[in-house]
């Protein structure tokens, strides 16, 4: 029966089969195609394995650090410890002292420890963050260590630098206030001080009336009160960002009440005895003046464990020939002196200016200035002691300038900055005004800007800041004296009597001893000596004119000639008249230029 039926409708059945099979195929294939479209994704491979280097930082990264963020003291310590672990031949890591609250002040010493005697290489000392709120100096210094380690052996310039120089890198010399700035509620300006309790208001109590984070948002912002007799109003276009003065004939809207806080000690004043209350950058021994002349100086120079630690460290390393200390803000390359009439020799001023002119090119929008002349008078500043007290050519960079917001030669106006916050930062950095019931003022409003706005760069500009500033200090370091024994010329006067001319050359800009160093006998003189088993030196002296053969003979000890200095891009010639035979050794011993020796045989 089935057969009859099949035979009878054969053609129809075929048509149906073709139709349904086709339908099935079309539908299922379509569904599959759709499904495939929905589920298609790239493999989640590690982007690092497929990344390619941009120029600048090294491709290989033994220590991974996000350089668009900030790190507290423990974080900073972590970076240094990992660097030290990854680069044991390039680094030493130690504490140079402890802060008031017992935090270690870490120093990472970077040089190729396998090449030469590290302690006798010209040294560059760099620190940051002496003012607790000026945090990014710490990142610049840590970045410098990170960069040098990773680029050693890869870039010729870095390799040569670490072979002949040593870097003493101290990211923060105020670790207490650094941590405090990150962890406690603070504003961009506060936490500049160190954290030794101080009686700012002279009432016998210390640090008893600090700011208070009244609204508990983790930031110290501003307080304002609605007041018809106040002279402020919100900016019409940027009410959250800017408070502006009302016109003289306009009725007021607000009075400003200062930073967030209450009268903790009941003396009728608010926030008048905050944590700390001094300025460690006024606590240095050279041109120091007491508190009544220079705010923040403390009772005597180096009274603070932090500044004392740095001073003792520098005094114990006479090879330090250059130094830098980071501050914020303003985009400035600062040099001394800190006060009008402060000491600065003409030749040292010239060297500083030449180096900072390179800096101005490396650092767009940065200006090179002398502190007293263009900024303000500073007594007892760090760089004054480094230069004035120790004869070390030193700069202080004021990191970050608002000119960098729009890359303009002039600083943007308040309104332009408000626009940057609104259109570039999408409002990040602002804390809207909110009402608060204040125990003294009653109903007030609290709000304003986050501490990260104003003195430190936003994330996407930070890395540039780190690299460019480091580049400037590497140039400065490279200008430290590079001594070579250029030539030892032996002239036979008669049998067993020789005139030996030793030419020592300084292939860099900075002299072995600066003008300040020579004037005040800070470092020992450079000593050129001749020794040989069968040789006796009869006379010696510095050659003052090589063509007319003028020589300044030493009075005694002819085997040991003291040179005041070997100038930048200059040479010194020493003459020895010696009798004897065999080989002799010339040694050049310079505190900041290192030790050179060369053996030669008498003809």
């Amino acid at each position, binding site marked *: 029966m089935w057969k009859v039926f099949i035979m009878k409708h054969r053609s129809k059945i075929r048509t149906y089969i073709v139709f349904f099979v086709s339908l099935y195929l079309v539908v299922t294939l379509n569904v599959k195609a759709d499904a495939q479209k929905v589920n298609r994704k790239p493999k989640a491979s590690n982007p690092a394995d497929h990344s390619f280097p941009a120029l600048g930082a090294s491709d290989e990264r033994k220590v991974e650090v996000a350089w668009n963020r900030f790190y507290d003291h423990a974080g900073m310590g972590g970076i240094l410890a990992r660097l030290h672990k990854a680069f044991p031949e390039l680094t030493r890591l130690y504490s140079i002292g402890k802060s008031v609250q017992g935090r270690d002040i870490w120093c990472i010493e970077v040089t190729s420890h396998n090449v030469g005697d590290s302690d006798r290489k010209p040294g560059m000392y760099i620190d940051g963050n002496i003012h607790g709120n000026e945090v990014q100096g710490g990142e610049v210094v840590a970045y410098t260590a990170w960069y040098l380690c990773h680029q050693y052996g890869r870039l010729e310039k870095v390799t040569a630098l670490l072979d002949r120089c040593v870097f003493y890198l101290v990211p923060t010399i105020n670790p207490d206030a650094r941590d405090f700035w990150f962890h406690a509620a603070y504003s961009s300006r506060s936490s500049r001080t160190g954290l030794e309790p101080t009686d700012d208001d*002279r009432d016998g109590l210390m640090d008893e009336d600090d700011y208070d984070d009244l609204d508990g948002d983790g930031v110290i912002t501003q307080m304002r009160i609605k007041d018809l007799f106040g002279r402020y109003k919100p900016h019409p276009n940027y009410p959250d960002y800017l408070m502006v003065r009302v016109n003289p004939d306009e009725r007021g809207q607000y009075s400003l009440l200062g930073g967030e806080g209450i009268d903790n000690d*009941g*003396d009728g004043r608010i926030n008048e005895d905050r944590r700390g209350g001094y300025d460690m950058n006024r606590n240095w*021994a050279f041109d120091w003046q*007491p508190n009544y002349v220079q705010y923040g100086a403390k009772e005597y120079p180096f009274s603070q464990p932090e500044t004392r630690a740095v*001073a003792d460290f520098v005094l114990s390393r006479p090879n330090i020939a250059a130094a830098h200390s980071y501050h914020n803000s303003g985009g400035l390359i600062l040099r001394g002196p800190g006060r009008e009439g402060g000491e600065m020799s003409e030749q040292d001023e010239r060297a500083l200016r030449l180096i900072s002119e390179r800096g101005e090119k490396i650092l767009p929008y940065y200006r090179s200035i002398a502190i007293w002349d263009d900024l303000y008078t500073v007594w007892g500043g760090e760089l004054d002691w480094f230069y*004035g007290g120790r004869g070390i050519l030193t700069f202080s960079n004021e990191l970050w300038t608002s000119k960098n917001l729009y890359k303009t030669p002039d600083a943007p106006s308040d309104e332009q900055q408000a626009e940057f916050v609104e259109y570039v930062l999408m409002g990040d950095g602002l804390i809207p005004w909110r009402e608060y019931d204040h125990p003294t003022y009653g109903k007030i409003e609290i709000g304003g800007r986050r501490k990260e706005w104003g003195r430190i760069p936003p994330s996407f500009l930070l890395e540039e800041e780190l690299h460019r500033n480091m580049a400037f200090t590497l140039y400065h370091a490279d200008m430290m004296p590079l001594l070579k024994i250029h030539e030892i010329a032996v002239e036979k006067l008669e049998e067993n009597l020789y005139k030996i001319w030793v030419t020592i050359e300084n292939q860099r800009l900075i002299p072995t001893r600066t003008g300040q160093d020579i004037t005040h006998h800070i470092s020992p003189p450079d000593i050129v000596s001749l020794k040989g088993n069968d040789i006796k030196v009869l006379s010696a002296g510095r050659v003052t004119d090589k063509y007319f053969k003028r020589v300044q003979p030493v009075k005694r*000890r002819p085997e040991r000639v003291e040179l005041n200095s070997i100038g930048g891009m200059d040479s010194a010639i020493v003459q020895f008249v010696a009798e004897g035979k065999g080989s002799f050794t010339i040694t050049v011993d310079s505190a900041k230029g290192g030790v050179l020796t060369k053996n030669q045989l008498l003809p």
Partner: protein
Amino acid sequence: MSLTIIQLKMKPYWFLLVTITLLTMQTGIARPATYYDYKSLRKHLVSLAKQDPNLVRVDSIAQSIDKRKVWVVEVGKGAEDNRKKRPSILVLAGIEGNDLTGSSIAVSWLEQLIKQFRTDHKITELLETTTIYVIPRLNPDAAEHFFIEPKFETSANNKPVDADHDGLMDEDGPEDLNEDGLITWMRVEDKEGDYILDPVDKRLLLKADNLKGEVGAWRYLSEGIDNDHDEEWNEDGLGGVNFNRNFPYNYEFFASDAGVHQVSEAQTRALAEFVIEHPNIGIIITYGAADNLLKTPESAPDPDRRKPMISIDEKDLGYYKVMGEIYREAIGLNKELENTSCPGTFSDWMYFHRGRLSLASRPWSPSVAVEISKSAEEEEKDEQEKTGDNDEKKKNADYKKDKDKRNENERKELKWFDEHAPRAFIKWQSIEHPDFPGRNVEIGGYAPYSLTNPPANMVEEVVGRHTDFLTTVIQRLPRIGIRRVETKHLGQGTYDIEIHVENTGFLPTSLAQGQTTREVYPTRLVMDLDDEHFLSGTRITTLPVIPGSGGMVEARYIIYAPNRKKIDFEIISMLAGQVEGTINLEKSR
């Protein structure tokens, strides 16, 4: 000839030191004032403290490079908390290592006070209301050179310093060439020298004056050889830093004895910290080379706040003037002599940067000794010469005018020594010197310490005069008090209160410089009453400076306190002490 460096010689002589100490200890029943070496000083201080542990405490504030301790003695009755609040004085000696007299004065004064505490009710009362800090010797290492051979005078510690800037440390110190146990002087007959013999007294030398046609014939050096062959003699010996050049005011950066920076040494730092931790110290007396008591010091008006003061504020001058007068009378001087100022002294720091009355005394000097002898003679003469001839005197004066005045003071001093302590000047004697073969080299001149400390037989008298001065000075501190409290009931539990605060001491509650430097905090009146009760006035009131000798200020309050019967209050002064008082609130008018 022995060329051993001094430091190496110290150890063998140690036993000598101990023997001397033991000998002096045995003889000391009624102990005459003397010079103390480290061990005897320590023993002595400890025994003082043992006499009355409730009155005297001995502690150490620092350790020297050679591991000697720096002692501080605190005298005062009562608990530590109270003692720290009282008006107080600091006596500091031996800050310059060669000052032995100051140490003896300090110790002697302590002895005297402890004795008088039991016998003299005025001193008893004083020590119950005043705290005395005495640091008898800040630089024990240097002072020890007096007690060992060769005796060598230095005011500095043993910190290695490259004094001649040749890259070598302490490589050319002095030697005792004639082995007399003293490092003295050396004069070498040498045409390259700058000196001639004083024609009046050949024992003294004079700088040759080529304008007078004088040709130098002598070198004048300290005793020793040129160890490092640089044609300088003893130019880079052991040490060091003079602690009394190491303080921040008028600090001389790069001076060879000033230290590598201000407050660089363990002892100077300990001293600085000590005075910061004891802000109640109102008067400081420092014995050393500097002196501001022989003559009233220079003064000037207070300049702009941003400019450092370089002279004593004229508003403070009166106190210095009075102290100088008392001082000169105490030591037996009837006229002003010249002051001595030095850079970087502790004393100047305490006035110019810390705002305290800071007196500096050079406890003895030949010039003062000469002057005291002279005035004693003049007194006698005046008695005899009342009918003398005036022409004779005039003639004498004219003659003196023509005479060469150079070395005049030196000759007078040497004459004084001839009469009073002939052993102070060692007779010049020729020796053979390896650096000057065939030349006449003589060793002699003033013995170490003889120009800075009185001869042994005079120590007691000098010390006695100074201790009298110290006892006068402690009675010149400021002292806060409550003169009276006036309460008026205005009705309904509202009161008008006036508190009269007085200063019964001598000094004001703060010198002008204390206000300029802001280091002397204002006096505070603190009421034990909550803020809401004040209709006028505040819980804490800062008072203006209260002058001494009965000066007074008043604080006035309007208070609403219907449920209170009394209000306690406290007056806190940094230098003038603290007092407590009570306001009785009576409703009757």
